[in-house]
């Protein structure tokens, strides 16, 4: 995997844009997924994931070929998401409760194109609850939790991606886990 990526990067450096297409194809799901879990919104996640790939392309000459490409790419993506979260003014969330109602969210006010199969609803609900809880975590805990449990990266890699000391990463994971535990214990 890394070997193929290195080969493609060298081709990109020589000006071969098509080689970059293959890199995008290989990492798009992972990057999109990280962005989605960080931002909790598909539309924003797509914007940020695309932006991450574009930035990686324009800065590809800064990438140290001896290092892991995915780490570098995640770093760009998580930094973009963190910036986005910080800049974001509170706006409407589809799954935020509509004021004056109980348990009624914007989802129920928006017509869906295709009805979901009944059996999926429960797991979808659980999924969206979990996602919502992840989204309420402070951004510094959210990024470590997402990288650790959703991308299943090692602590060392997370510390590389976020450019934080290993000890800080550990502390944040501990606190993030505790915060999530309190939020999810009632499930």
């Amino acid at each position: 995997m890394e070997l193929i990526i290195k080969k493609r990067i060298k081709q990109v450096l020589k000006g071969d844009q098509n080689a970059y297409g293959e890199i995008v194809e290989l990492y798009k799901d992972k990057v999109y997924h990280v962005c989605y879990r960080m931002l909790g919104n598909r539309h924003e996640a797509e914007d940020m994931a695309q932006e991450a790939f574009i930035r990686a392309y324009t800065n590809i000459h800064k990438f140290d070929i001896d290092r892991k490409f995915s780490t570098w790419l995640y770093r760009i993506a998580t930094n973009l998401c963190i910036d986005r979260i910080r800049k974001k003014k509170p706006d409407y969330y589809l799954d935020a409760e509509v004021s004056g109602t109980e348990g009624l969210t914007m989802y129920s006010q928006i017509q869906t194109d295709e009805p979901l199969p009944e059996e999926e609803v429960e797991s979808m609900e659980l999924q969206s609850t979990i996602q919502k809880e992840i989204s309420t975590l402070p951004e510094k805990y959210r990024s470590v939790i997402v990288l650790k449990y959703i991308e299943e990266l090692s602590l060392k890699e997370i510390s590389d991606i976020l450019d934080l000391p290993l000890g800080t990463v550990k502390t944040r994971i501990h606190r993030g886990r505790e915060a999530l535990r309190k939020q999810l214990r009632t499930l």
Partner: protein
Amino acid sequence: MNTCPDKVVHMMHDYLDEELSQENEKELKQHLQECEACRTHFHELKRTIAFVQSTSHIQAPSNFTKSVMNKLPKEKKKVGMERWFKKHPMIVAAAVFFLLMSGSLFTTWNDGKEFAFTKSENIVVDGQTVIVPQGEIVEEDIVVHNGDLRVEGEVKGDVTLINGKRYMAGAGTITGDIEEIDQAFEWLWYNIKSSFQELGDLVQSDEKNE
């Protein structure tokens, strides 16, 4: 409410990070067996992780790669060239050298527009024509710039004509090599060749000197 020391919770987290030493792990396990509050806490943590991990892996939209590729900055020729220059300094240096060299050669070619020739006792000049009269013998080489050469007698050396024509009379003979250069390219070639020859001569004379 949990009244156990923070150390226990800390050990739980270290355990979850797979960084708890074996002794501490034993200690933790023993404590969990004895303390229900901690057991619940630990169980909740594990459940939380399971929940987080249960979130399905979602995939990027189907047209993702295409839209990224469309948004990529078009490779500007200038950028591409700059990068190429950075990557091939030797070629750039060679190109610059060649450019300057050929520039200076063209200047010498253009400078040499006026009529010139190697002076020799036995030749006659008529306007733009150098004449080796009948019966005369020229021992050395003759080079004529921007003029013609008419050979009625005999030339024992080499003849080089730059931008000129050579007329041979019936009795005229040239013993050495004849070279006629009309075009810039040939002029360039001639220059290169002669400089190499000079170099060769230099090396040879060096060898002789040794």
